[in-house]
C-alpha cells in the first residue's frame, strides 16, 4: 500500500501546483511524512519485522538521552561539593531508614506522629535506596528541629557527617541527570530531536536544577516523576490501553507519595474523561473516558499502598497530611514574612521574578558573556520568552488537532500542575520552583522544535525553488544549444535524481 496515496485532498491545497509559488503554498500546507512508510522487503515476515524494530527507530534517541544524562551527571557531580548546606537536607537523610522499614509495615516507623505526618515517604525511600547502594548506614542522622539553633541540633545528632551528606547528594545528582534525560524524551515526543536537545540543555545548565541536584532533598524525585507522568500521559493518549492507564495512575500516586501535589492531577484527568464521556459516543471514546475516570482511584490506591502510615485510616490520615502541610506553610509564612505568598497572582509574579532574575539558564550564559567581555553588568534571564511562545504554540496545536491527542494530554497535565502550584503555594521557597522549570522545558522544546522545523522547511524549499528556477531559466549559452531539442521539459517535471531534495 502506497501510503502517500492516503494524503487527503485538502481544500486549502491547490491540486495542480504547476507554478513555483503554487508549489510553495502546497508545500507549506502539506505536512511532510516524518516517518518512512511501511517497507516491503521480501515475503518473510521476520525480515519485515526487522525493518521496523523499535531499536532501529529509537536508537538515536536513546543514545542522545544517555548523552544528556552523562552531561548532566558530570555537571552535577562537579558542583556537588561546593553547593551550600541546607538544614532541610537532614530531614531526608534522617528518614532514609524508611527504605529498610518498608518490610515491617506494621512497625513503629509507620505510626501516627509528626515525622510520618510531616511528609509523604517516597523521597526518603529513594534517599535510603541511594545511601544503601553506596553502603552507608540508614539511621545515622537525627531530625533537625527548626525551632532550635545549630548547637541544639548538633547535640541531638541532627547534623550529618560529610560522608553521609555527600552520599545523599550523589543520589540526587543521579536523579537530576535522569530528569534531564526525561526532558529530552518529552521534548522529542512533543517536537523533534532539536527541541528535545534544547530542553535537555536548558534543564542541565539551569542553576536551580544544579543546586537541587546537589543537595540531599526530594525535589528532584518529584521532578523526575512529573516528567514520567507527562511522558506516560503522552503514551496513554497516543494509544489508550488499560495497561498505560494503570501506569499513569501509579505514577500519579507515586508522585503524590513524594510531594502530594501530583496526586491532585488525577482530578482534572477524571474531569477530562467525564467530558469525553459526555461528548463522544464511540466505544474507543468510552474506554478512554473510563480509563481517565479511574485515575483518582488508581492514584489514591497507589499512594496509600506506598505509605503504610495511611493504612489504618486512608482518608483521614491523607487529610491529616494535607492539613499538616497547609499549617506548616502558614507557620513558615509567619516565621519568614518575606516568603509569604498572598495570592495566586503573587505566586505567579514570584515564579516570574525568581526564574528571570535569580535563577535562569539564559541569564547564566549572558552573564558568562558579560564577564568574558568585561562588561560590569548583572544579566537578566529570558527563559520565559521561548517558554511562553511554546505554551501558546502548544495551545494552538491543541485547538488545531483536538482535545484527545497526546499533545492535549501533555498540555492538560502541565497546566494542571502549574495551576496546582500557583493556587496552592503559600510560602515561597526556592525549591518550590523546580516543577515550573520542568514545565518550562517542555514549552521551550515546543517553540524551539517547531522553529527548527520551520527553518528547515524554509531552507529546503528555497533550495528547491532555486533549483527549479535555474532549470527553467538556463544559461543563454545552454539555451542556444538546446534550441534544437524537441521540447522544453514540463514545469512539473522533476528528474528522479533531484527528487530527494
Amino acid at each position, binding site marked *: 500500500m502506497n501510503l502517500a496515496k492516503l494524503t487527503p485532498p485538502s481544500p486549502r491545497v491547490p491540486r495542480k501546483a504547476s507554478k513555483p509559488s503554487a508549489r510553495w503554498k502546497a508545500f507549506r500546507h502539506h505536512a511532510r511524512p516524518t516517518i518512512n512508510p511501511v517497507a516491503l522487503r521480501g515475503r518473510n515476515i521476520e525480515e519485515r519485522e526487522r525493518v*521496523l524494530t523499535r531499536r532501529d527507530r529509537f536508537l538515536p534517541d536513546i543514545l542522545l538521552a544517555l548523552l544528556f544524562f552523562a552531561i548532566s551527571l558530570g555537571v552535577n557531580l562537579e558542583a556537588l561539593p561546593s553547593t551550600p548546606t541546607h538544614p532541610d537536607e537532614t530531614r531526608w537523610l534522617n528518614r532514609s531508614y524508611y527504605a529498610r522499614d518498608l518490610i515491617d509495615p506494621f512497625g513503629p516507623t509507620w505510626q501516627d506522629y509528626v515525622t510520618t505526618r510531616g511528609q509523604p515517604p517516597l523521597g526518603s525511600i529513594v534517599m535510603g535506596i541511594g545511601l544503601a547502594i553506596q553502603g552507608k548506614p540508614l539511621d545515622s542522622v537525627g531530625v533537625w528541629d527548626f525551632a532550635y539553633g545549630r548547637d541544639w541540633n548538633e547535640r541531638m545528632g541532627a547534623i550529618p557527617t560529610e560522608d553521609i551528606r555527600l552520599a545523599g547528594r550523589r543520589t540526587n545528582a543521579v536523579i537530576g541527570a535522569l530528569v534531564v534525560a526525561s526532558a529530552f524524551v518529552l521534548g522529542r515526543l512533543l517536537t523533534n530531536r532539536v527541541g528535545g536537545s534544547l530542553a535537555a540543555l536548558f534543564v542541565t545548565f539551569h542553576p536551580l536544577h544544579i543546586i537541587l541536584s546537589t543537595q540531599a532533598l526530594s525535589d528532584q524525585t518529584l521532578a523526575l516523576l512529573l516528567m514520567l507522568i507527562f511522558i506516560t500521559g503522552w503514551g496513554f493518549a497516543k494509544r489508550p490501553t488499560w495497561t498505560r492507564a494503570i501506569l499513569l495512575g501509579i505514577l500519579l500516586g507515586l508522585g503524590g507519595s513524594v510531594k502530594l501535589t501530583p496526586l491532585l492531577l488525577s482530578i482534572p484527568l477524571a474531569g477530562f474523561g467525564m467530558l469525553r464521556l459526555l461528548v463522544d459516543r464511540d466505544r474507543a471514546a468510552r474506554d478512554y473516558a473510563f480509563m481517565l475516570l479511574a485515575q483518582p482511584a488508581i492514584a489514591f490506591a497507589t499512594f496509600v499502598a506506598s505509605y503504610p502510615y495511611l493504612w489504618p485510616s486512608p482518608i483521614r490520615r491523607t487529610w491529616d497530611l494535607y492539613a499538616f502541610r497547609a499549617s506548616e506553610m502558614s507557620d513558615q509564612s509567619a516565621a519568614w514574612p518575606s516568603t509569604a505568598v498572598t495570592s495566586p497572582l503573587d505566586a505567579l509574579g514570584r515564579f516570574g521574578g525568581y526564574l528571570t532574575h535569580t535563577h535562569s539558564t539564559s541569564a547564566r550564559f549572558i552573564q558568562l558573556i558579560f564577564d568574558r567581555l568585561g562588561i560590569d553588568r548583572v544579566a537578566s534571564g529570558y527563559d520565559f520568552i521561548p517558554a511562553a511562545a511554546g505554551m501558546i504554540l502548544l495551545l494552538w496545536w491543541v485547538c488545531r488537532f483536538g482535545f*484527545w491527542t497526546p499533545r*492535549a494530554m501533555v498540555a492538560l497535565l502541565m497546566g494542571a500542575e502549574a495551576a496546582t502550584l500557583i493556587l496552592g503555594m503559600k510560602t515561597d521557597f526556592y525549591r518550590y520552583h523546580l516543577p515550573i522549570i520542568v514545565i518550562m522545558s517542555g514549552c521551550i522544546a515546543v517553540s524551539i522544535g517547531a522553529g527548527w522545523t520551520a527553518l528547515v522547511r524554509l531552507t529546503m524549499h528555497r533550495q528547491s525553488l532555486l533549483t527549479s528556477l535555474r532549470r527553467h531559466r538556463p544559461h543563454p549559452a545552454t539555451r542556444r544549444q538546446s534550441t534544437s531539442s524537441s521540447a522544453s521539459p514540463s514545469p512539473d517535471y522533476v528528474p528522479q535524481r533531484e527528487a530527494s531534495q
Partner: protein
Amino acid sequence: MTRTRLFLPGLVLLLVTGLLLSTPAFVNAERDPLAPVVDMPSPQVQTIPDDLFTNEQRASLAGVVNEARLFGVPLVVRVITMPTSLQTLSDATALTGVVPTQQEIVQRMAETWLADEAVETSEGAGDGILLLVVVPENDHTLSTAAFATGPNALPLNGLTEEHLDRVLHDVIYPFFANDHIATGIHSGVAYLSYDNLFAVPARHQRSDQQQTLNDITSIAFTGLALIGVIALGGLVFWIRRRDPHSGQEADQRLSPFEAGALTRGRVDTNVITAALLHLITIGALRVHMQKSGKMVLAIQESIPVADSFARDIMQRLAQEAGEDGLIQGASMRRIQDVLSPVGDHLQDSLATRNLFNRDARVETTWVVLASAALAAFAVFLLMPSMMAMSRLGLAAMLMIGIAVVASLLWAARRSWTSRVGQRALAEWQARPHSATDLAIFDTIIHQHVLIDAIGGPDVPSHIQITRRLRALGAG
C-alpha cells in the same frame, strides 16, 4: 441515551462515595495526638513558694511547656520546696522496716498530686502529664523529680515511659546536681518535646484477639491464597496447552486480512482500520476534510472491491451513508463501533474454519471469573490482615495481586489463533503474494507506525487519517 450515559458515571460516583463513607475516617473520633492543647485550664508552671524562680526563669519555663502543649502534650510543671532532704526522710522511714527511695517518694507525691489536680485535655480524659520537682531547702543539689501520667497519657506520639525516664536521668538530674534547677527543668521539657515530635513511637502490641486473628490469617487464609494462586496458574496452564482442533487440516485459502488477523490473534481495530485504509487507497472510499477540521468518508460505489471482508465493510458503511454517499457525524465518530459486526463476522468465520480457537471466549471468561474470585478473596483478606497486623496476610494479598494481574494480562493479550491457524498462516507466508496483499498485511501488523505522531509540529496526513479511523484523535 443521555440517561444511559449518565448512569455509569453516576454509579462510579456512588461507589466512590460509598467507599469514602465506609472507611474508618468518619468513625475514628479520638483526640488528634498532635493537636495543640494550649487552652488547658491548668497553669503551665507553679512553684511553692512563688518566688522560687526569677520572673525570667518562670517565663522561660512557661514558654517551653507551652511549646510541648502546642504539639499535643498536656504537660504541667510543679515545683515545691521542702525544709529537709527527702533522703533524710527516706532514711527515717527505713527505721520502720519499709525502704522507699527518694525517687519512689517523689513519684508517689507526683501521682497523688495528679489525682488531686485535674491535669487533662478534657474532663475525664485522663491524659495529663505532670512533672513534679521537689527541692530541699537545705541542699538544692539533692532535688528530685518525677513524671506522673494519667491512665490514657502514654504512649503519645514518640513519648513512652522509657523516654520520660531517660529525660529524667540523662537530662534533668545532671543539671540538678550542679544546682541548676530551672535550667534542668527547661532542658528536660525541651527534650520531652523533641522526643514527642521526632522519637520513633513504641511498637503496637497485638491483643489476644489480634493474636488469634493473626494466627488464622497467617496459616489458614494465607494457605487458601496459595491454593487459589496455584489453581489459577493451573487453569491458565491447562488452557495454554489445550487445542481441541490441532489434528485437523489447515484451510489454505487465506485473504491478507485473514492472515493479518491470524498474526494478531484477533480481529481487532488494526484489521478493521487496515480494511478502511485499503478502501481509501483503491479509491472505494474518499476522504474529505471539512473546514471545521472534521474528516468525512465518501463511498465510491463504482470502484470494484475484490476482497470479501473489505466488501462487507463497504456494505456496512453504505448502510450508514446518507443519500449523497457521505459518512459523517455520529457514524464517523463511531466508525469502529459501526464496523464491529463485520469484524465479529470475520472472527466467527475463522473460528468456524478452526483457524481461531472456538472456545477462546469461554476460556477467557473462565480465567476472568477465576481471577475475579481470587481478587475478591484478596479484598476479603485485607481486613483481617490489617486488624491483626499480619505481614503474611499482606504477602498473600500481594501474591494474589501479582497472579491476578498476570493472568488477566495473559487473557487480554493471548492469541486466539489455533495450531491449525498457525499452520495456515505459515503456509500463506511461504507463498508469493501481490504487493497489495503484502501491503494490507503489513498495515495490519505494523499499524503502530501509522499512529505514532512523533517528530515535528505537524501531524502527517496519513497519521491523522489512521488515528481518526481508530478514534484516537488527530495526532
